[in-house]
């Protein structure tokens, strides 16, 4: 009679499915169950953890790099905007022209989501992935020109917007663009929601204390990490659903 670990490994399978996908996770757990029949429960859990690490380290590393990239770029932006006249020179500092303001506000908001999502997707899915190629193009079209004068930023905001429309129009690039847009929107909405929550729980100036405050520093980064983790999970899920070819054949 076979001894199965199914009853106590269902949550473990669900967790593995977050990394490997449900079909792969079920097959892996089945293999481990079959192998454990002669090796025992201890072997089963050790093998499960080793498998989890083997399959999941890249996702974790991609998230850490993406989150670090986001924090570094936000810090750089903060330092840059303290330079005299930098904010006036930057496109979203302009208020005298509605078109310039709107288009470049779009550029800066979109760019900030890419600071996390582009490195995350690059490390998670590799450079051959179409969505990653889109991320790289948008990253190069937005971030370097965010810090330039109004006219240059306006041009690249319009180019970026046109490219989004073109990608949605194309049958080849539509799905990667949908995943990219959903990830960016989720990242921005989740960041805004967590920022709003922290502000309500603490006080309006909690994010920008006059002096270094360890609690503020930790809470702000932790909530940002949670917000971006939501975007990463959605990105991985949508990528699996929309961009991966079906692997089961008749």
């Amino acid at each position, binding site marked *: 009679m076979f001894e*199965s670990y199914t009853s106590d490994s269902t949550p473990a399978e669900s967790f593995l499915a977050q990394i490997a996908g449900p079909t*792969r996770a079920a097959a*892996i757990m089945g*293999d481990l169950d079959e192998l454990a029949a002669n090796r025992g429960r201890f072997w089963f859990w050790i*093998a499960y953890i080793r498998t989890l690490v083997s399959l999941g380290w890249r996702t974790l590393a991609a998230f850490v790099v993406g989150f670090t990239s986001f924090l570094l770029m936000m810090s750089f932006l903060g330092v840059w905007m303290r330079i005299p006249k930098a904010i006036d020179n930057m496109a979203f500092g302009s208020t005298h022209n509605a078109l310039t303001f709107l288009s470049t506000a779009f550029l800066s908001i979109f760019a900030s989501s890419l600071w996390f999502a582009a490195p995350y997707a690059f490390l998670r899915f590799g450079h051959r992935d179409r969505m990653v190629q889109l991320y790289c193009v948008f990253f190069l079209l937005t971030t370097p020109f965010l810090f330039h004068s109004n006219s240059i930023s306006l041009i690249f905001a319009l180019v970026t917007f046109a490219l989004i429309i073109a990608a949605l129009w194309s049958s080849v690039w539509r799905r990667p663009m949908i995943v990219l847009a959903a990830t960016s929107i989720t990242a921005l909405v989740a960041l805004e929601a967590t920022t709003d929550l922290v502000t309500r729980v603490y006080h309006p100036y909690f994010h920008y204390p006059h002096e270094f405050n360890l609690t503020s520093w930790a809470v702000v980064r932790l909530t940002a990490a949670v917000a971006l983790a939501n975007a990463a999970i959605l990105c991985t899920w949508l990528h699996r659903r929309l961009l991966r070819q079906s692997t089961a054949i008749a």
Partner: protein
Amino acid sequence: MNNDRTLGEFEQIVLLAVLRLGDQAYGVTILDEIAAKTGRNSAPGALYTTLHRMEDKGLVTFRDGSPTPERGGRAKRFVIVTREGRNALASAQSAYQSLLQGLDLLADPLVRLMFGGAYV
């Protein structure tokens, strides 16, 4: 040579094991075949990582089997080597054969003694 189709050592071992097993190649049998033919007890995680990477490269594909009780009611996922996988393996093995020519490495009695026929 196309760098995207360059195979690592373990990838070649896995592909060869899958080809040897035919339509019965899935996680458990692949690990057993590798252990039997090479004496290497590979970790399941290493096998799945390699299979997933090769799936992304288009070197292997999968066929779902039927659920069985010894697997807790889960289906087996049989591995199939694609045409690209066969070509990549043939290319890699051809390179090995070229490098081995004239060395008589496999005919060395000491090698036979050390590996007990595992590689010879």
